């Protein structure tokens, strides 16, 4: 195992993140604050409570998930796509580094960034609402697994993407709608029956539900199913990574 290389990749990726700190930290804080103002204050004042939780607090897990999933995906996809774009990937390919080590470096960094942003949003929410966490360990576990699995997904997208448009296509067209429609800002019980059934096919719904359970002990689906869903999703991404590793798909001629 070339640990020095993993460290080099990880630290360089993290340095990029801290170098663009305004974009990295300020943007999520500002957009989260806006969500709190719009959803929490303006709309929340008319909704009052969702299943015993004040609406402002109810949306906190969803907001964290929204940012964490988007950040993990975009950071990981950009991290590996950028050297492909500039051509500097030649160095990674000619280095004594195997694909697993490269994956750990890039995905680890992207997951760390998403985790930091998730923590910042969590901290920001205290300025707006009264948040309590019923199961801190479960919360951290859900957060970690989400960071990791979506960073893996982003890494796969970055390897697949042939241009910047493709790079943004999946996060924009798939992940954002899935998160919004997965019950980030509402309980699915508030939906008409038909849309409740549709929501059952949305994988992100299970993650948000489980994550919210760790806060309020209140969930749309049983927490065990949420855990199975996220474990299954992580396994799927790992499987895809293993396949890319074996075939060299889109990496080596």
């Amino acid at each position: 195992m070339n640990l020095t290389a993993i460290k080099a990749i990880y630290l360089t990726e993290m340095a990029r993140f801290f170098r663009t700190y305004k974009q990295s930290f300020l943007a999520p804080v500002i957009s989260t604050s806006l969500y709190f103002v719009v959803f929490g204050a303006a709309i929340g004042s008319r909704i009052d409570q969702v299943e015993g939780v004040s609406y402002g607090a109810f949306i906190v897990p969803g907001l964290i998930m929204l940012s964490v999933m988007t950040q993990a995906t975009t950071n990981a996809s950009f991290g590996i796509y950028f050297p492909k774009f500039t051509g500097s990937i030649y160095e990674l390919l000619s280095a004594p580094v195997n694909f697993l080590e490269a994956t750990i470096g890039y995905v680890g960094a992207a997951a760390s960034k998403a985790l930091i942003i998730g923590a910042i949003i969590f901290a920001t929410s205290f300025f707006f609402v009264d948040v309590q966490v019923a199961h801190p360990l479960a919360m951290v576990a859900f957060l970690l697994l989400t960071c990791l699995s979506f960073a893996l997904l982003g890494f796969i997208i970055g390897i697949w993407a042939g241009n910047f448009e493709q790079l943004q296509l999946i996060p924009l067209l798939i992940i954002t709608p899935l998160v919004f429609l997965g019950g980030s800002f509402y309980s699915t019980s508030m939906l008409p029956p038909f849309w409740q059934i549709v929501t059952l096919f949305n994988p992100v719904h299970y993650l948000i539900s489980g994550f919210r359970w760790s806060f309020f002990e209140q969930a749309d689906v049983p927490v065990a199913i949420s855990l199975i869903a996220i474990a299954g999703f992580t396994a799927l991404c790992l499987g895809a990574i293993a396949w890319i590793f074996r075939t060299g798909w889109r990496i080596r001629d």
Partner: protein
Amino acid sequence: MAPIVQVKDLRKTYDGGFQALKGVNLDIEEGEIIALLGPNGAGKTTLISTICGITMPTSGSVTVGGHDIISGFRQTRSMIGLVPQELSLDAFETVFNAVRYSRGLFGKPRNDAYIEDILKQLGLADKRDTKIMALSGGMKRRVLIAKALSHEPRVLFLDEPTAGVDVELRKDMWNVVDDLRKTGVTIILTTHYIEEAEAMADRIAVIDGGQIMLVQRKDELMQHMGQKELRIHLASPVTEIPAGLDRYDLEIVLDGNALRYVYDTRADRTGITALLNDLNAVGLQLADIETRQSSLEEIFVGLVKGDAA
């Protein structure tokens, strides 16, 4: 001593069906500078990319320092530094950080003093904290060399080191390579400039159409092909070789305005004196005389056309 790089019957067919390498055999000795000379599309970059691990070979084998490039990729890649043809760099990184990253990527423990030395050697010392995007093309090329040297490789590949570089910088680059030679690094460079191969290399391998056409010491190659040409410009054109000059194997060129005579500079008798006397004897009036040495360029063009030795 066993060659440091040994390429055996290497073949590469790309997915699209293009056969870039058609059975390449090449031994590279430790400490030498070898130039891979060939036109665009000859397979130079594919050969280098395969040895470095960027391109997977279709068949054949390559060893570096006795290790196979696939089963022993960690050993072989640790020994190799690659300077690519394109200026492929992360523009937002500083010079020092970019070079330090490369060292880490190749698994070498952090050694900032060593990196400072490399930067100094390449004339980059005052640019250490400059962002790469602010550097000129020539300086970026040096950063690529610094990155390739950051992990103390024994073999250095330079893919077209002076492509798109002006004359002054080209000379500069030759000096850099000359300095590197003194450190004992084996250097493999690709080029389609004959001048460059002539200036830098100990040996020259001519590659075309995915095959090695010839590998020879530069001086031997030059000597072997060291023929000279005498061109006799005539005052009035001729349509055929006059009878008295039959024994000279002359060729009519420039629409009859000149005669071409090829001779070997190392032969005991070049035949020039006799020829000139006979030209006078048959009554041809000379306008001018010029002699030319065949350059590597001509040797190369001849080989690629397939009509030379």
